[in-house]
């Protein structure tokens, strides 16, 4: 039986700040336990809950395996990291912040490539000229594979990239990218453009529940109370 409702909350940055704001506005002020850098916290108005400060990616993983009951994270991470979304997760509430799109972006100088449907032909010619497939730099391996498969794009290879993805085409380590962007300014600064139909996912911060967590006992009641306050 679960004694407490465990809530995964982002541990840093704007995602954390805005999450704390949203909870506080609903009368659910989150307090960190111990030192400033403590990784546990509590909500005074909700005794049956415990807060676990984690990175957004860890929250998606913890939701997947049921280590936390509820969590705030990005839709992009939920869709990327959880292969069997419907069976594992309930999407409870879109929070309206952390908005960004996961997009396919190519060098702006590819003026012959405007749509996703241009990529396959480009890839085939590229392979003839350079003896290899087009390389796509991304941290979104699964989203990329799914999107390209749906659009009949096959002539590519993924190069996993965990940072500064938008610099890879200019550096020559990749040819195009799949990355997250909010204003498009970083893409433009790196001489990249988003394909006309290249938006894979419109993402924002969301509150999700794990279907795999232990929902017996007090956790379930605490969830009902929490949701009532957030929805009020």
């Amino acid at each position, binding site marked *: 039986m679960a004694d407490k409702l465990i809530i995964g909350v982002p541990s840093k940055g704007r995602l954390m700040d805005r999450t704390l704001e949203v909870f506080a506005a609903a009368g659910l002020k989150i307090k960190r336990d111990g030192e400033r850098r403590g990784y546990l916290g509590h909500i005074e108005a909700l005794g049956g809950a415990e807060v676990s400060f984690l990175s957004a990616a860890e929250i998606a993983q913890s939701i997947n395996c049921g280590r936390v009951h509820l969590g705030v994270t990005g839709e992009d991470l939920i869709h990327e990291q959880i*292969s*069997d979304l419907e*069976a594992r997760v309930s999407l409870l509430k879109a929070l309206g912040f952390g908005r960004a799109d996961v997009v396919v972006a190519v*060098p*702006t*100088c*590819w*003026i*012959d*490539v*405007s749509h996703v*449907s*241009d990529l*396959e*032909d*480009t890839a*085939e*010619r*590229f392979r003839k*000229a*350079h003896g*290899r*497939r087009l390389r796509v730099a991304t941290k979104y*391996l*699964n989203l990329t*594979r*799914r999107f*390209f*498969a*749906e*659009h*009949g794009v*096959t002539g*590519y*290879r*993924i190069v996993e990239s965990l940072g500064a993805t938008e610099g890879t*085409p*200019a550096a*020559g380590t990749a*040819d195009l990218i799949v990355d997250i962007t909010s204003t498009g300014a970083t893409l433009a600064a790196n*001489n990249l453009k988003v394909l*006309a139909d290249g938006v894979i996912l419109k993402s924002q911060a969301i509150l999700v529940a794990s279907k795999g967590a232990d929902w017996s006992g007090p956790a379930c009641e605490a969830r009902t109370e929490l949701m009532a306050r957030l929805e009020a």
Partner: protein
Amino acid sequence: MAVESSQGVALEALESQAAAMRKVFTEAGFELVAPAILQPADVFLDVVGEALRGRTYVFTDPDGTELCLRPDLTVPTARAYLARYPKADVRARYCYDGPTFRFQRGGGDTAHPREFRQVGVEAFGHTDREKMEAEIVALAIAAVEAAGLKSWRLRFGDLGLFQALLGALEMPERWRARLKRNFWRRHAFRAELERLGKGFGDGDFEVPGELLDALDPADPEAAEEKVAAHLESRGIPLIGTRSLSEITARLLDQAADRRAPPLTAQAVKTIEDYVAIKAPPKAAGARIDDLMSERGVDIGPALESYRRRLELFREAGIDLSVAEFSAEFGRNLEYYTGFVFELEVASLGAGSHIAGGGRYDNLLAAVGAPHEVPSVGLAIHTERLHLAVEEGL
């Protein structure tokens, strides 16, 4: 819950089933080989494509070498053949029996285990194509029957017919390539066909129509200069690996597309009508014949090859009353190039075929052979076969 093959299925039963099938293959002159389970990720995935990569267990060893657990046995067998005959100038018949690995959501189930045992054959270098294809299908049937399966259905398709149809219809070669490329993906294929039937206008391209109209295919150098001037006037720097001439080459195609008349309504209709054909083998042949003569399209040799294959099926004793031809029947592996088939049982449903295979003439060249080699193969999913046999089908 994850299902290990050693738990989900009785090992003994699987072993005796595989032994019965190995016997069928070796008696038919196929040498038993054991290709490597660990494969270099790069070579392998370049051939099977990123879609299957998503379901392949890939990892990096302490030396930094990227390896994978083989997601099928065809590519490893082709590599083993090439290691033995680097010139790829010898006929060979191989059979195998071993584990393959594919990611399944949530660890898989009994019909879709992530570690499964494949038994199959590959035949390299046999130039009588239809004959080898019929032999492979007959072998697949003999093998599953030796393993105890009593009833099955045969579904097959033939990329050769479709290629012949495209070849016979009036259109630029690059449009044929576009349709061929999308053939396996219904949605993308329809969209492409619609686009070619509509013709290309300003909305289809990013660059202004005036620039495209100014590009002369007969003078690629001048075209390149115009493209360079266009980029400069917009302050767009050239970055990345693709060169100005590669970008210009595709723009020249777009210029030609703009000038070309759209695919005729008759041609679009003929392709649609062909793709919709799904019928028992003999009736399908007659319908294809009728359609082509009605539309005045000559695909003689491909249709002849279809008929000859059917005749050879019959001679090999294959029961065609449980067979069906489907023009758009495809398999999801990129390397198939011609005839493709699957054996199914009703109870396991679609996507759970028991055996499958076909022709893949480009594969050996793709893994390093100096030229293309006629190749046909089949693979049997032994856990599924076992389930079907257990159910007394």
